């Protein structure tokens, strides 16, 4: 197995994630797509770690950090989505134009 295979997989997953973030209307699915992008990045990190044979295993450690941060982020994100749903009876990001002044 060459590193290219991992990189292609990572790029594909990242692209799916970007597509999901930009097109999905449901906020939950937007969050899932973000997770997909993070997973793609993790694949890249682990692949490069092995490829470069890093003695400190920096890539893997970083991947663990990303997973931890992603977990926290999802926790907060879902809580926000839940509150928005409660207040507005839907969670479509299209309807959320409050960021306009």
């Amino acid at each position, binding site marked *: 197995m060459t590193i290219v295979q991992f990189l292609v997989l990572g790029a594909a997953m990242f692209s799916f994630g970007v597509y999901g973030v*930009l097109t999905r209307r449901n906020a939950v699915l937007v969050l899932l797509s973000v997770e997909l992008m993070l997973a793609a990045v993790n694949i890249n990190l682990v692949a490069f770690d092995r490829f470069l044979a890093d003695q400190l295993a920096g890539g893997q450690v970083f991947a663990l950090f990303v997973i931890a941060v992603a977990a926290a982020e999802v926790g907060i994100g879902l809580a926000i989505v839940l509150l928005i749903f409660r207040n507005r009876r839907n969670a479509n990001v*299209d309807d959320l*134009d409050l960021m*306009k*002044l």
Partner: protein
Amino acid sequence: MNAWFADLMVLAAEGKEIELSDGGVLADFVWLIPVVPMVMAFVIVFFGKRSPLKGWGMAAGTMGFVALYGTVLFLMNTFGDPIYHEGTVHLADIGSQTLGAHIGDLMAIEWGWMVDGLSIMMYFVVGVVGLLVFIYAKGYMHGDIRYTWFFASFTLFAGGMLVLVSAPNLIQLIVGWELVGVASYLLIGHYWEEHENSSAAIKAFLTNKVADVGLFIGAIMVGTSVGSFRFSEIMAVIGEGGGDSALSRFAFWAGIALFIGAMGKSAQFPLHVWLPDAMAGPTPVSALMHAATMVTAGVYLIGRMFPFYNYDGFADETRWVIIIIGALTLLLTGLIALVQDDIKKVLAYSTLSQLGYMVVAMGAGAYTAGLFHLFTHAFFKALLFLGAGSVIHAVHSNNMSDMGGLRKYMPQTYWTFLIGSAALAGIFPLAGFWSKDEILASVSYAGSNYTTAQGGAALGNFVLVIAILGAFVTAFYMTRAVSLTFFGEYKGKAHPHESPKVMTYPLIGLAAGSVVMGFLNMPGITSFFTDSVGARILAPLDHHPESIDVVLALIGTAAAVGGIAVGYRLWFADKETQKLRDTFHIPVLYPLLERKYYIDDFYMDGIVRPVRGPVANAMNWFNGHVLDFVVNGAGFLARGVGKYVYAFDQRGLDGAINASAGATGASGGFLRVFQTGRVQQYAVMIFAGTVLLVAGFIIF
């Protein structure tokens, strides 16, 4: 100190050797005496209102300091060795190649402090009398609308006088002289809401200015011909003797010019007109002005320049002018006091009369006698004014026709006023007796020693007669004032009451001074005053009698008692108070006195009006033609410039501002398209940006 001074000491002490002291550390810090009040005057202006006592505390504290310092110096000087110390700070040089006899010399402008018998005596008087008057003023000025401002100018007044008396040179003396003038202007016009009062202030100021011209000319003549304004330098030139020195050539006219200056401040006839009107100020001001500061300045100046007026070959020929002016003042103004109804004006004319005595003494060459009278007079005249103020405070009127019978209501004021009156009249053994007797003795001694140039012996005897007549008149009007104020029936409307303690205690203090101060210089018994104050001056005629001249003393006392007796007959014994007084109208003399010899009318109709009319016309013409032309021209110019400025403003500036506003609007319109509020659109833009950046990095 040069050798010349040492000679002076020996001569002045009439053969007694005098050890001089330099005053030590105490003399080094005498500069604080004028500086502290001057600084405090401004401190009171800025911080007085917010201080707990509204400025009174600072003012009284300042005077307390001066009084304490002055008293210590006075006691040291009187009971120890006489002090002589001159401190100087060099400020600047003035002059040109053509000034005076000392061609090419620059003349120094200096600030300094004099510590000698004369100035120590003045520190003492200004400090002690001033402190008592300041304490009294707390009660008298209570509730005044400009309470703090009053104490600020009052402190400035005392401070100006202290600058004057501490001056070791003529320039600083003039500075102090003018400070006193300005402060007196502020204080006389304290109640400026009434036109009369502000006029009085202006009158005082202008009359003094007329005289100041004399002082300036005299100071310039003396200063340039000596090459220095320092008194010690001037005295040194005088000490070398007359001969052909520049000073002796100018001496007569310089002496006259300086004396005109003294006539203004010391209110000598015919420049006395401002002093009675100065009664418009609050009573404490009158008290201080008539006792310690202001009017004493002229006598002080003559005292300071005394050798100049008494040395052969110098201004000794002006002496007959001085003595005649003094004699005229002493008698004429004393007579006016007889017809005044305003109690303060009676005292004001009395001050004029007493100043006449001092000037006569100075003119007669009696240095010690003149200054001793100044010294004692300060105490009893301040006492009388404060007593009058206490009465005015009680009955709310200045007029004696609204008083009467106050003896029962205000016993402390009555007794102290009585002591002051007796001292002024010269009743044994109060202070006025000793000083007046000393003047009579000196005039009689000097009269017989006059040279023809000085007016001759006849003039001396004539002045002696006038001085004795003056003593009679003094007792006469004081008896009148006491009778009308404190005896008979009360004629006013307000309910009289004794003044508060803050006012009566200063009265008691000054009464004590009026009793004891004469004992400093009893002929044949004590000579503290002569030895301390007179010690620095070589005076050929200064004469402290070895023993009392019994005949003269008896004549003087007889005159005073006679005055009291006539006054008693006319006013005191008159049970129906009004009757006899109103019938005592001698034709011709009475209207003459009532109108004050028409001097005010002459000044007004003879000088002020004729000058004022043309000056006003000239000013009007100047205003209508010259000033209006300038103003119109400026207006025309401004309009032309304005036109161009307007065009530039409309086109240039407005264009730039509108353009920038338009650009802002347009860019806003463009950018608003992108701000949709949709999170995903923003995400697209971020992603697009990222892609562009990455592409950029990869390509380049």
